[in-house]
């Protein structure tokens, strides 16, 4: 077991760090302030291959492994959590299911432009009445035999990359069956929906606590007709597909949480060395030293869990528990570390210019989206107690 990154991954990290520092960091305050999607940064990320990192080169990607991809999310999140989630939602939630379940035709049509960054992707599972309880979903897809099309009706909410995306992975129920106890159960299927399809419109833009530049929208489907060939994977297997997709997504969000925590600690370390109270820098007080040590330890533990989960994904097989463990710990680390960083920086920590308050607001969502911390605990304990 080797805990040291090899030269190749170190070089990839230096690339992501360099890009994040020069391109994403200078815009982070403005992106938060204005709630504007960072389109120019995304264009640059497209140019340099950041939008298709774990996709094979024959499909327009970079041919790298999941570890390289999550290091990209981590380095971006250190300076701008909004920018990092654009990459994470696009890659983990839109590209990954097409790569996993897509036919060759679907890969050529959708995966290639997504991996090249020519198109932006999104994933739509959550509904107003169905978050953790996915069975509560109301969005329905019916097959029209006459036209050989699927007809979508319903709405999705809190969709990351909402209005900015071109290609959407949409989960809808297609069948209702009775289980062994005679209870009615919805069977879900996965669809690829293109922006501009008649009957597909956008609802309200959400105003959020954090990741404020991320475009979070409601999607509305009213008799939205999509071609038969846009069914992704097997009819009725959509719920399993979505859960598997979220396993991968959770590693991305865990990496985002890790990056937010690292970014906040970096800024706090620089601050406590400079800030003087009672005639000496506050770094010389034991409370500061112990808090810094605790946070660094939490972050290192989170990093090992996140990298382990990414490597488990690369190996194939199931990695649900590794992903859930990484996300649970990294998200709670991000929330804890950013809160402590604000406290250590005192009044300045509460001021937007000093950025750790933004990181504290950004950290909160990592405990909620792509499965709340409670859901992660259910996944982990479920595997242990079965």
């Amino acid at each position: 077991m080797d805990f040291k990154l090899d030269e190749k991954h170190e070089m990839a990290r230096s690339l992501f760090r360099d890009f994040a520092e020069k391109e994403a960091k200078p815009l982070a305050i403005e992106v938060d302030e204005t709630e504007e999607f960072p389109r120019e940064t995304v264009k640059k990320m497209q140019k340099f291959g950041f939008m298709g990192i774990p996709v094979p080169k024959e499909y327009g990607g970079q041919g790298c492994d999941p570890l390289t991809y999550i290091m990209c999310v981590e380095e971006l999140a250190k300076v701008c959590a909004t920018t990092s989630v654009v990459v994470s939602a696009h890659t983990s939630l839109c590209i990954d299911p097409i790569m996993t379940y897509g036919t060759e035709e679907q890969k050529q049509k959708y995966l290639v432009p997504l991996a090249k960054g020519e198109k932006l992707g999104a994933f739509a599972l959550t509904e107003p009445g169905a978050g953790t309880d996915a069975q509560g979903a109301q969005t329905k897809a019916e097959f029209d035999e006459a036209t050989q099309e699927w007809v979508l009706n319903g709405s999705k909410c809190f969709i990351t990359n909402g209005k900015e995306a071109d290609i959407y992975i949409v989960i809808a129920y297609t069948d209702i069956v009775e289980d062994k106890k005679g209870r009615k159960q919805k069977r879900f299927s996965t669809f690829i929906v293109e922006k501009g399809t008649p009957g597909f419109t956008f609802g309200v833009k959400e105003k959020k606590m954090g990741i404020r530049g991320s475009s979070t929208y409601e999607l509305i489907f009213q008799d939205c007709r999509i071609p038969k060939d846009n069914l992704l994977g097997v009819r009725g297997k959509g719920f399993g597909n979505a859960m598997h997709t979220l396993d991968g997504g959770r590693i991305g969000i865990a990496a985002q949480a890790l990056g937010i925590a690292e970014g906040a600690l970096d800024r706090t370390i620089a601050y406590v060395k400079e800030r003087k109270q009672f005639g000496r820098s506050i770094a010389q007080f034991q409370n500061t030293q112990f808090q810094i040590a605790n946070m660094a330890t939490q972050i290192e533990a989170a990093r090992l869990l996140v990298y382990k989960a990414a490597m488990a994904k690369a190996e194939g097989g199931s990695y649900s528990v590794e992903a859930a463990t990484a996300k649970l710990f990294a998200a709670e680390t991000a929330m804890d570390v950013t809160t402590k960083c604000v406290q250590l920086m005192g009044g300045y920590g509460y001021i937007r210019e000093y950025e750790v308050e933004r990181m504290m607001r950004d950290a909160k969502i990592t405990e909620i989206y792509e499965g709340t911390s409670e859901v992660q605990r259910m996944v982990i304990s479920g595997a242990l107690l079965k």
Partner: protein
Amino acid sequence: MKIVVCIKQVPDTAGGVKFKPDGTLDRGAMLAIMNPDDKAGLEAALRIKDADPENVKVTAVTMGLPKAMAVLREAVAMGADEGLLITDRVLGGADTWATSSTIAGALKNMEYDLIITGRQAIDGDTAQVGPQIAEHLGLPTISYAKEIEIDGDSVIVKRMFDDGYMMLKAKMPCLITALSELNDPRYMTPGGVFDAFDKADKFVTWGRAELSVDDSNIGLKGSPTQIAKASDKVAKGKGTVVKPDSPQEAADCIAAALLEKNII
């Protein structure tokens, strides 16, 4: 079209310069980067390749210790087709004459239409190696390039000076030295980084035996100049601190100081 770009691994002076007790540069204690002028030269070559990817081949060449392979990997990760490392113990301690003789000795055994080097390296700051290579090879040189354009079998270069510029045209093969102001070099790509480590056939290492150069012109023994001592920039004094009571008084202080030095 074959373009050779000469690049050098240099210590990153952004974090401060560190010296050994004997006064020589402590390279091991400083981060190593691709020399900025050389990186601009590489970017210029890659832009020529972007315009005609099928017919333009870019080879990055460096001379140095085996660890200098890192800058060749970076060059390939940015888009260069291949990298050549010139390394041999007998080449150590080379001054600009021995370095340019050695690199020219390698270039004599390579095919090229255009050679691009950086204007100067941030460690040595001599600006001599590029033009010297051209002299060894009997090629025309255009130094201080701020813009490069390919025109058939010639290059048109905007050559910068402090107070103006020249537009020069030269038939290839020729050598151009690039200014870091030439462009804004691209980032590596993640896939390029993977290629730089996974595709071993993109890299070649040459030692003394592969070079067409006389023994009298290489290494420490072939170097007419030797560094007696190196030092950091002389630290600035503390300056004068004044605490004016009003903006008007502050402006008066600054104006008086500038007048005293005959700046205004």
